[in-house]
């Protein structure tokens, strides 16, 4: 039985390893980043999320909506850690369309913490029309909505290592992936060349450049993190990961408790089972 199994497994392995040779794609694999939220004990870096939010607000929000996120989420446990006061003040800087009122009219009022992030365009068509016909997708869950193929055998190991950062890694790669089109590739007017975008021709102009966003200063007057396009990309990607999975910290924390309990329970059951079965088992049998 063992031998037959080994033999068939060997055949399978041979087949599986031979496969990538004829499956090679042309879009490069995004490089991996060292995120603070990797792994079962990973958590978000609050200061990074705050910086990422600033990048979103000052750059990306000009074109992209984030309709599933509310201002109040920014002060929620496990998030960027703004205070409720900061969130209230921030929300009030926006004018939100509300109504109809008792007279039947729509009106504008200052934002409240419970409001969703307002969208830059009234509808998808308007957003597309303003961007050369391409709709800038809503960024609320974008970090979970993009991926790349891990391939065999990595996807098997990913179950144990809990690697699931394909989406965020792609975001960083995309935002830093602008370059001159290689010879022979024609980029239509109003489009750009991006190394990591599937098909390479993208309608989003390179949104980030060094120094474009001012970061909070530390005590010695220097910015908290380098004001470079690369750092902006990482910070905004981390922020988008949080936006897509706002309860990640609670999830991992609860998971640790649940699994610890189950491990203990399984241990007790194991010894109980042994004890009970020892009544009827001879030493040789199991």
């Amino acid at each position: 039985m063992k031998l037959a199994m080994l033999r068939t497994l060997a055949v399978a392995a041979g087949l599986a390893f031979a496969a990538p040779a004829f499956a090679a794609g042309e879009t490069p694999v995004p490089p991996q980043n060292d995120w603070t939220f990797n792994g079962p004990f990973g958590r978000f870096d609050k200061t990074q999320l705050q910086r990422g939010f600033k990048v979103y607000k000052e750059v990306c929000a000009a074109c992209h909506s984030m309709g599933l996120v509310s201002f109040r989420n920014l002060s929620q446990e496990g998030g960027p850690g703004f205070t409720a006061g900061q969130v209230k003040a921030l929300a009030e800087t926006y004018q939100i369309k509300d109504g109809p009122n008792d007279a039947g009219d729509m009106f504008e009022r200052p934002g409240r913490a419970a409001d969703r992030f307002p969208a830059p365009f009234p509808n998808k068509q308007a957003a597309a029309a303003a961007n050369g016909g391409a709709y800038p997708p809503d960024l609320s869950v974008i970090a979970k909505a993009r991926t790349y193929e891990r391939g065999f055998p990595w996807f098997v190991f990913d179950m144990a290592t809990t690697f699931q950062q394909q989406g965020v890694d792609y975001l960083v790669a995309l935002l830093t992936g602008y370059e001159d089109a290689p010879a022979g590739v024609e980029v239509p007017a109003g489009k750009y060349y991006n190394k990591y975008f599937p098909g390479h021709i993208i309608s989003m102009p390179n949104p980030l450049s060094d120094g474009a966003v001012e970061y909070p200063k530390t005590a010695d007057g220097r910015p908290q993190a380098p004001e470079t396009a690369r750092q902006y990309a990482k910070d905004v990607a981390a922020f988008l990961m949080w936006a897509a999975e706002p309860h990640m910290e609670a999830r991992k924390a609860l998971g640790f408790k649940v699994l610890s309990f189950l491990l203990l329970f399984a241990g007790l059951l194991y010894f109980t089972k042994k004890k009970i079965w020892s009544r009827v088992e001879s030493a040789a049998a199991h």
Partner: protein
Amino acid sequence: MAGHSTYVPKTAVGRWFESRLPIVGLIHSSFVVFPNPRNLNYLWTFGGILAFMLVAQIVTGITLAMHYTPHATMAFGSVEHIMRDVNYGWLIRYLHANGASMFFVAVYVHIFRGMYYGSYKAPREILWILGVIIFLLMMATAFMGYVLPWGQMSYWGATVITNLFSAFPVVGETIVTFLWGGYSVDNPTLNRFFSLHYLLPFMIAGVVVLHIWALHVPGSNNPAGIEKKTDKDTLPFHPYFTVKDALALVVFIMLYCWFVFYTPNFLGHADNYIEANPAVTPAHIVPEWYFLPFYAILRAIPDKLMGVLAMFGSIAVLAFLPWLDTSKVRSGSYRPMFRFFFWLFAVNAVILGWLGAKPADGLYVIASRICTAYYFGYFAILFILGFVEKPSKLPASIAESVLGRQGSAAAVGASAAAEPNTKG
């Protein structure tokens, strides 16, 4: 279900109730004193695990349904609302989505266990066929459930799979219109799928009752594949198998929780976090992992109708297994040639799954065809094996297979003294 009950209620109220509805006695005879072969290994714990998963899906599903909105413009948003705003909504949703996968992990182990130990053979054919029906209902349930979050993969998966029915001559188009409730996958489709997704798990529960009923007539098969003859071949369900099932279940739940808490989207598709859009087709339309082997079979056949028939046939053929396997010996442990073909079948199924996730071109198609041929060929091989294979020597009894010849002799006295007569 286990024949005459030996249960005697201890209280007057208990006796009053039992003489009117002997349900406690039924539970007692089915799950307390029921005699199980003593040599069952951990592969026999997956039945209990499956029962747990069905309950888990129903409980989490009903809770999701309290917050979910089955409408084409609101479904995606309502699932995100569950994930973000409902207290522990993320937990319930991840338990349900990963629970479907774990349900299939368990059912595949359970099916392969049956195939290896010949559990489908007489007198367990009806039991086996009921299992195949449960498997089919599970697939239908999971398919319709996957449509509910109304992401890109939900929408396009539903489009591809429902379209398959159009391959049938004459009635095809009618069936498709009936499934859609219109002229394409749209809001009526989502509504009827939600309705059926709510219904089918309860139908599964009904068939599970029949499945267990059919099981308790002959009792469980076992790794030796021989019937129990005397009381020393068996042990009462409680405490021996309750504790063993509980241990296996807790370990299985740990695996389940690992996915739920630490990598909850591993088994899903990124594309399903994009709201359904009939105007944009995803680059690869891939079903959930548990459908992949069948999807590979579908695509291996160049003709659409034949492909659909092959796909459904690959599941239907399982129902005929009791008559396709001609060997008198049940357990694969005593069938040297069978064992080779069985493991090849198992590996072949995994490769088919892998191929189902690959684009249908070039070498992948050729590999899919070879694997599909072996998938069906296996059943023909089983038919022939029964005539040509020389099985190895079977143990004289279940007790002997566990305890060895001397041990089994010694156990006679011990078990006769220690255990009350529990055979129903």
